[in-house]
């Protein structure tokens, strides 16, 4: 729906329940830990694959296992979004994951120039010299 003005949105009655966001169900994975399997976790892997955090899809389907590949994807995601890099599906990470977003991938062809693609600036020299 396209409302020309915010005031043109109908006033819903009290029984109106807004539709759930497409990714709200992912919040059920909050607190899941590596090494275990969870029903539907493959959907979260599809999410990470879609946005480039899992570069290649398996030949068949993603499993529901919380494996090393998912942990790495989470760490990269956390770095890109300035979150604590834990590799865990903590509350802050999940709240960020379910937020509406642009459909363009963050990591393209395995590379990103968001935070995770940048070198640690603290280890680089402050200046350099050029010989003439």
């Amino acid at each position, binding site marked *: 729906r396209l409302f*020309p003005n915010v005031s043109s949105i109908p006033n*819903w009655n009290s029984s109106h329940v807004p539709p759930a966001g497409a990714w709200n169900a992912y919040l059920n994975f909050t607190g899941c830990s590596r090494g275990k399997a969870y029903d539907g976790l493959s959907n979260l892997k599809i999410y990470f694959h879609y946005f480039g955090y899992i570069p290649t899809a398996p030949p068949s389907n993603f499993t529901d296992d919380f494996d090393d590949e998912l942990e790495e994807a989470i760490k990269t995601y956390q770095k890109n979004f300035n979150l604590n890099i834990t590799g865990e599906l903590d509350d802050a990470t999940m709240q*960020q994951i379910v*937020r*509406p977003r642009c*459909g363009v991938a963050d990591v393209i062809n395995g*590379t990103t120039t968001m935070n995770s693609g940048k070198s640690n600036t603290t280890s680089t020299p402050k200046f350099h010299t050029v010989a003439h």
Partner: protein
Amino acid sequence: YSFFDGKPRWPEGTEELTYAFDPDNGLDDTVKGVFSNAFKRWAEVTTISFSEASSYAVADIRIGFYSGDHGDGEPFDGVLGTLAHAFSPTNGMFHLDQEEDWVATGDVTQASVSNAVDLESVAVHEIGHLLGLGHSSVEEAIMYPTISAKTRKVELADDDIEGIQVLYGSNPNYTGTPSTSRENDSSDGVR
């Protein structure tokens, strides 16, 4: 700021890009005006200007609202989730998810539905992609990938401006404005 892989951009010497709306959407002037405003925000800081084309078929940038699988291999997913996507130069495709509750004008933070999405905020972001910018980790930047519902974020941040000026240079009339005076607002305080 970031660029797409290979740093694609519109050809050297491009001064104006044309845009057009999918005629099947039947958009009114209010909605078209929102996109016009979004284009102006980028034109103010760089060397490319934008004008509406009379023909959808020949426009550089083609804008349309679609739902679900709409033929480009990037299906939309319904309410919230993915809001829109646009392609890198010089593809020009700019698609928005028809199933969102888009708000064209007014204070979206006061919307009576929790999933209202500010159209101009998303348009400004996607135009960045159309010009060649990728996503940014700077939360204040327009090119940050996420935006909450009922949030307005339309002013280019320094990060966005620096990025686009690396690609195309600066508008000679651009003098810069303090970031503190910019208009970014949110109902939940998230920026």
